[in-house]
């Protein structure tokens, strides 16, 4: 894994269903990590502040900046915890979702 030390992504849980979401370039929230906007240090505070305003607007909860790393040319969360948040449990579930779940 190659770190991308200065890149950060804003993540949160969507208020209504708790789904893990990422702030995208349009200022919306996406359940796909691939849609996340990654910013360097100089824009991180601004990204966090903008994301935080959506907590006040009851759109998301638990906004945080996370570190990202570059793996095979693609960005992914640096920590195992955040990779599990992004891509789901590392284990097969007793029963897969009944369908319609968006791919992360």
């Amino acid at each position, binding site marked *: 894994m190659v770190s991308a030390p200065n890149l950060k992504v804003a993540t949160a849980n969507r208020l*209504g269903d708790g789904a*893990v979401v990422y702030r995208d370039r349009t200022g919306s929230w996406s359940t796909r990590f691939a849609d996340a906007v990654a910013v360097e240090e100089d824009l991180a505070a601004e990204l966090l502040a903008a994301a935080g305003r959506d907590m006040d607007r009851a759109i998301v909860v638990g906004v945080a900046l996370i570190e990202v790393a570059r793996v095979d040319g693609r960005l992914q969360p640096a920590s195992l915890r955040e990779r599990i*948040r992004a891509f789901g449990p590392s*284990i097969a579930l*007793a029963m897969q979702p*009944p369908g319609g779940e968006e791919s992360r």
Partner: protein
Amino acid sequence: MYRYDEFDHAFLAERVGQFRSQVARRLRGEIAEDEFKPLRLMNGLYLQLHAYMLRVAIPYGTLSSAQLRRLGEVARRYDRGYGHFTTRQNIQFNWIRLQDAPDIMAALAEVGMHGIQTSGNCIRNVTADQYAGVAADEIEDARIWCEIIRQWSTLHPEFSFLPRKFKIALTGAPADRAAVKVHDIGLAMRRAAGGAIGFEVIVGGGLGRTPMVGKTIRDFLPKEDLLSYLEAIMRVYNRYGRRDNLYKSRIKILVHEIGAEAFAAEVEAEWREIRDGALRLPRATIAAIAAHFAPPDYEPAGGDAAVLAADRLANADFDLWVRANVVAHRAPGHAIANVSLKKPGAIPGDASATQMEGIADLAERYSRGEIRVAHEQNLVLPHVRMRDLHALWRGLIALDLADANLNLVSDIIACPGLDYCSLANARSIPVAQRIARRFADLKQAHDIGELKLNISGCINACGHHHVGHIGLLGVDKNGEEFYQITLGGSGAEDAAIGAIVGPAVASEKVVDAIENIIGTYLAERRAGERFLDTYRRLGAKPFKERLYATH
């Protein structure tokens, strides 16, 4: 079973209505998360890694078939088709939507269930021996006393904002299947020399960051004094328990710091003031609660033992399941059947909606409509006629729930770990799966014999790793998962905290390490010795030498 009366149902309906209004206001943005969080937690609704998680209380692990069926319905309709039974005899749903939570609570309330007392710094849902009321070795049914404690502790105004959460466990048998010595208060029913029945009161046990075995502060407490004595303990804790440091706020720290004798003296002084007051339990009250737990009208044995013996002779797999999973019942001709939720390779403690509904059906057919949840994350059918065991086993096979591995190496306790829990540092479930697969051969597992292997994904120890004969604690070392190994723990009547055997091992080496440790046991054991017995006889040295010689 205890069934909610009109007051209970009215209270739950009121609570559902309040929560529905709170959720609506939260979703409209009229209340902030900081204001909402304590309200949702008081109803068992957490926010975990992937979604909201709802923890539903199963008081003293007792469920009716209607309740289990309803849990299955909740899993199917509102979650992803499964639920996770926990080490506190509760169930958790991992994929709950906030907007659905009020409807789920309403559905649960219809069958007398809720998430109250599953979170927060209150007296939590009381746990008990899963065989209460049916165990052959029992002095008295623990559920009667658990229910009395439940009614006293629920929404107790004086104890709703304790320094920290508070857990009480109770056993009515000399064999401790409820881990009472590692709870804030453990109650063990005892028979005095004159024949009177009362409680040994154990205080200050616990796991987590600072594991401790509780101390007995009273050898014998008369039954009618139970609530006044508990109230006295709670008052002393509430008065002196630390609120300035989260890590020192549990009662075990207070008992440790001032000493069990001084703590007991404080309790006794407080108790003298209140023991003859309103909390003294009248016989009529005890009898009224006990009536809810009266044994069913068991049919006479009628050759059941002979039928069972013939069934066992005819089928070796069935015989193995009986040996591992069936326990002596107090009523002739009957048996206690354990349903393992530990199929090697599956998620410990998980049951699908179909399985929950299927077990509810089997309970109605063979177990008087009653099910128990064990803190080891298995289910129990407590009232099975011996002659019905074979048919029950067939039914369990159809549900993929007939694994004959109770108390064996693959019967692993595991917390949700980093796959679900926001507190975890490392994963528990995949490690449990890998170990269970390595020891999936039942012949080998039965040869190894009783072995409690417990895994926690962080120091909070929800997987009870400290009291596993072998314990694994997941730790994060520079972003990599490592597992600290402890040996010699026990949550039973011979309770002990396991000792760390040496440096933590990397995730990919854990299964080999467990096999290595078990190899030492197999090489060193004497006839009739369990793993724990061999460890206690030899100490850590041979285990450590062999383990680290190859790692």
